[in-house]
């Protein structure tokens, strides 16, 4: 497995991209990645505005806290953001793009990058979460497409993080998304 993995999370203010990144950070730390740093974009977290968060994962301690410019993986919590901003900016050749989207895999072209699509919004509702809560479901899609951390570990961290706030439904959303994620070549 690689020594460093840079994952950029794109969502909207209030959508929970930071919590999603934090859950993955905790899982990766428990897998022996001593250096994890989740660095949110700063200062303009208005509800609904495009935001992103940088998750740096490394075998050694992380000293550089600047935002990720060349991600290995980009995760998108709302597919409409793809039309509003240059979401895939700097995504490495051979990198991975994970999108919460009702659209088909074929509607995304990513020039030599792997694409994975999952309708997390619909699946999260089916799991019993209020409409629009996608930050746990997207972790299932991320797990399936990246293979970086096992689904059982991730759902365990989800249940811990959401203790007292529908832990089972949040874990179920991740499981459903894992099952229904379509990964391109």
């Amino acid at each position: 497995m690689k020594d460093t993995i840079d994952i950029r999370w794109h969502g909207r203010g209030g959508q929970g991209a930071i919590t999603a990144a934090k859950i993955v950070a905790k899982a990766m730390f428990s897998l022996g990645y001593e250096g994890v740093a989740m660095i949110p974009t700063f200062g303009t977290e208005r509800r609904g505005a495009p935001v992103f968060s940088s998750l740096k994962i490394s075998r050694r301690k992380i000293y550089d806290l600047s935002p990720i410019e060349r991600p290995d993986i980009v995760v998108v919590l709302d597919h409409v953001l793809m039309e509003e901003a240059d979401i895939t900016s700097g995504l490495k050749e051979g990198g991975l793009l994970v999108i919460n989207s009702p659209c088909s895999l074929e509607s995304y072209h990513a020039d030599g990058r792997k694409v994975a699509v999952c309708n997390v919004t619909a699946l999260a509702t089916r799991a019993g979460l209020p409409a629009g809560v996608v930050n746990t479901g997207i972790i299932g899609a991320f797990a399936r497409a990246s293979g970086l951390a096992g689904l059982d570990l991730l759902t365990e961290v989800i249940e811990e993080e959401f203790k007292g706030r529908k832990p089972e439904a949040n874990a179920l959303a991740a499981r459903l998304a894992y099952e229904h994620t379509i990964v391109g070549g």
Partner: protein
Amino acid sequence: MSSHIIESGNTAAALGVKLCRVQVIAAYPITPQTPLTEKLSELVDSQEMEAQYIPVESEHSALAVCIAASSTGARAFTATSANGLLYMHEQIHWAAGARLPLVMCVVNRGVGAPWTIWNDHQDSISQRDTGWIQLYVNDHQQIIDGVIKAYRLAESVMIPVMVCYDGYLLSHTHMPFEVPSQEAVDSFLPPYRPDYALDPKRPANLNTVTLPDTRVDTEGRTAHGYMEIRSLLHEDLQRAVEVYQDVEAGFRDTFGRGGEALFEHYRCEDAEYVAVALGSLSHNLRDVVDTLREAGVPAGVMSIHLYRPFPARQIASFLSPAKGVIVFEKALSYGYEGALCSDIKAALLTHARSRADLPFVHNYILGLGGREIKTSQLVEAMTASCKAGAASHDGVRWIGLKL
């Protein structure tokens, strides 16, 4: 048992305050400090922490409440940023003059005008001369450990301590850190027992008007005038350099980590060029040093933890063998240069082993108001300084300026 968690820098600070069994908290929310005070109010509300949380209408009142609480013998805490810190300014001087062992987290942010909510160091650097001890920390482990050490230091020398950490870069970033056990913290930091505390049963005036000269008090003893009291503050602050090294050594014995009280250094052993910085920037500079070393440039980085009192002798003796010292600052003494740069030059002049062979000192100003600092820019700046050497010094140089 201690354990690792992944949380924000503000949470690290709050957990440190909780472990120190702080009894009175008074704070006014200001970005990027807000999540710290929110976390503390949650801990008090849920009774996980046994403390009085006193909501106030301003930062000036927040520190006034802490001064009053500390005067009665309570362990007190506040936190702020930027203009909130400046609104406290009068009380900041007061707390030091009154010799109260408060601890305050300063979550570093640029100062208006114009308004900025992003990080630089102008807020705490502008409070350099108030008589407080200033510690700068670089990551979450140093934040939680720093709060614990700060109380031990403050109560040892009866001087208040600011624990300064970068707004957003540390306050809002999540990273792993170890939370020490309550038992270990209790053994390191005994309850605060002041020699004197205000007591309603025995009313007294503290810090009333003090005459220019000494005078004989009601019991016939010569009482200090203002200048004696202030001179003793200075003397005790200078003594705090040694005391803090003892505190750090005790911390390492109890918790098994730390040990670098005054400053930390990276790849400096044979370095001809040493970058110097405060806060998380100095960690970023480690990656820069690695890049320079790969290119054959013998560079290192020094991160100053204890900025006031300034450990001038130790810093000068560490830096004087270098050919060049490059000071990176997120603050500026407007009209001159960075304050840290001036301090380092003065230290070298006073304490260097030989005046004939002093290193050149360059000063870069960067990151003001949160301007992004790219590692590549730092590499360019260091490379330029190493190449140019002593000949080219002409005041401050800016990084990332787009004029």
